[in-house]
């Protein structure tokens, strides 16, 4: 029997298609069978949630450097923040500064004496419109579903655009391996490696297990923490009943840390 080239190619084509489809059919057939259930990824039962976490610092209750030190220490200890020997390599999540540096646009030549000499706590403001997140080329820093501006250290490439973008100096760069400079290692929280940027994370890992941030817990009621969009929350209560200011509000970043003066 003589076959034309044309009919041979037709049959070969159909046969190749049939062979190619077999793996796809196998996969589809396996889907309907007895498969073990999928694992579930969920929030912890004690996890606290908010639309936008916010903080109010009552600076009237934190009068001296001695009052601020235990709060800074509590934070830096549990987050394995190293104490670098040189000031220009410093790594800080929360720190003390003077009025004129924290609120440069509110500073005047002559100000209230108590304010002038009062130390102020500064930390990441977890802005509602964070410039650091806009500039990050790898989305290593991002705003999470709770309004916390946080870092995914696995993605950080150390370009430091975020440090240039942050108007509050809240970010620090690891110029060296921080490991030798950590005084008390907290084994339950990761360290960082050389070449990544780090900053305050509003204690996202503590909120996930129903605990308040470390600095708030150590402040003996000088700081409040809660959901900015819950009218019943403690932060809203404090903001309602006291005059508060925010850092460099005119830049439009909408900081979530409020200061009672």
């Amino acid at each position, binding site marked *: 029997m003589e076959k034309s080239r044309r009919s041979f190619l037709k049959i070969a084509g159909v046969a190749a298609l049939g062979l190619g489809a077999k793996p796809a059919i196998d996969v589809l057939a396996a889907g309907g069978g007895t498969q073990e259930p999928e694992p579930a990824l969920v*929030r*912890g039962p004690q996890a606290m949630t908010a639309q936008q976490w916010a903080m109010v610092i009552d600076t009237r209750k934190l009068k001296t450097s001695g009052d601020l030190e235990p709060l800074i220490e509590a934070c830096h200890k549990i987050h394995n923040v190293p104490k670098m020997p040189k000031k220009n390599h410093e790594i800080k999540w929360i720190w003390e500064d003077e009025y004129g540096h924290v609120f440069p646009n509110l500073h005047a030549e002559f100000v209230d004496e108590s304010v002038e000499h009062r130390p102020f706590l500064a930390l990441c403001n977890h802005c509602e419109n964070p410039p650091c997140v806009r500039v990050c080329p790898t989305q290593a820093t991002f705003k999470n579903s709770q309004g916390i501006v946080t870092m995914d250290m696995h993605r950080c490439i150390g370009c430091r655009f975020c440090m240039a973008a942050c108007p509050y100096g809240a970010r620090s760069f690891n110029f060296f391996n921080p490991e030798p400079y950590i005084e008390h290692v907290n084994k339950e929280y990761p360290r960082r490696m050389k070449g990544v940027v780090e900053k305050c994370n509003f204690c996202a890992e503590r909120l996930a297990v129903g605990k308040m941030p470390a600095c708030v817990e150590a402040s003996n009621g000088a700081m409040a923490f809660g959901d900015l969009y819950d009218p019943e929350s403690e932060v809203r209560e404090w903001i309602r009943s006291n005059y508060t200011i925010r850092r460099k509000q005119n830049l439009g970043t909408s900081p979530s840390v409020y200061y009672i003066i």
Partner: protein
Amino acid sequence: MASKILFDKGKVIAGIVIFLALVTFPFIYNLGKAAPAPEPELTPKAKAAKVCVRDTEYMNKEHMQLLDVWRDTSVREGKRIYVSPNGTAYEMSLSNTCLDCHSNKAEFCDRCHNYASVDPYCWDCHIDNPKEAQ
């Protein structure tokens, strides 16, 4: 004329033989001497637990994919609990969950990683063996 198909026959064939001998030397030399695949060693705590977050076969093959999912969901989505198909809930944490049972990193993790010549940098930041040093 047939003898003219390959010029310098002797030199060419000798060359090919020497080339093949050199190229295959490492394979022939190491034949039958392959290092046996190391068995990860379990701590008493891991032995007592009997089951990991998933079955052993899955963990052998897929622990890297599992850890990748863990890090992304816990860091980026804030979901930190893993409910395995058998219904048990675990905290998704390398230091606090995995290395709590497998507190012998050198015998459990490093041995296979060295054998497979992989160099994961998890431990640059995630501190191994959280309980022992406390």
